[in-house]
């Protein structure tokens, strides 16, 4: 990153993620994230970045998707994924949703979605 005088917002994703573009753990926008019960309150850890602290504080209230965490914290989802990757490796957050189904959703899952929609709308 060389360009001096660049717009702050443009360099932000680079700075926030320490220059890493991807998390080693893969998250989808709808992966559900929860804090790990009994994990140390790393929000007070001097080594935690401001983004890590804000994310932990938000996630402590209950389960949210990666997209919701991004929206509440005003971060691009790509940045959220990298920070969540670090928090996951540190044992502070865990994911609830299984990996997305690459081969296509099952009949059972689609039937469950359909039943849910019919009951709601």
């Amino acid at each position: 990153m060389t360009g001096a005088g660049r717009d702050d917002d443009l360099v932000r994703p680079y700075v926030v993620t320490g220059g890493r573009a991807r998390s080693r753990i893969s998250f989808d926008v709808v992966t559900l994230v929860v804090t790990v019960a009994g994990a140390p309150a790393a929000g007070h850890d001097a080594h935690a970045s401001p983004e890590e602290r804000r994310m932990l504080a938000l996630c402590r209230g209950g389960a949210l998707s990666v997209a919701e965490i991004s929206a509440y914290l005003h971060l691009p989802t790509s940045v959220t994924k990298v920070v969540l990757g670090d928090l996951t490796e540190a044992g502070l957050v865990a994911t609830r949703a299984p990996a997305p189904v690459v081969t296509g959703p099952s009949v059972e899952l689609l039937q469950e979605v359909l039943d849910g929609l019919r009951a709601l709308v």
Partner: protein
Amino acid sequence: MGSAPWSERPQAAYLGATVERSVKILIAGHFAVGKTTLVGALSEIPPLRTEEVMTQAGAGVDDLAGVSDKATTTVAMDFGRLTLNPHLVLYLFGAPGQKRFQPLWRDLAYGALGALVLADTRRLQESFPVMDMVEEHGLPYVVAVNQFDDAPAVDLPVLRRALDLLEETPLVVCDARHRASAGQALITLVQYLLTRAVKEPV
């Protein structure tokens, strides 16, 4: 991005404690076709917005570190959610269909059940790039004509030919502002996905 102070953060609407699985459906369409309106009509929470960074050259933000001299642009994406039962939540993402949003689609489309393509009879030709995008990402879809008040009445068989739809692709009319109507369009999509899955078990 990052400009709103922390104190302005809306109160987070957390998921129920028993929800452990999530699925997503894309609400795809061209500019001002009613994507956000439809998401808002169905969502159990006020629609949320993420701001994604894209390089203008068309690469995703993942590549930002390596291409720091490229200009970047920020695009907003709206989404909402619907808890379908105590264990399962559905997310609806408003997906802008213009070609320049291609990089965002890779992440959005991955693992999505399918797409509801919104169309406006006054600007039908603008739906072709959207359907192309959905097809390129391998998503099965249904077309829902969002009936605007000042638009001509819809003749479905004529419309089907104009849009050059496959015979199997459902085409419905909806009012994106009304929950029951928007919900019916979504139900048509999931019924179609189910029919396909039954025919070709994975």
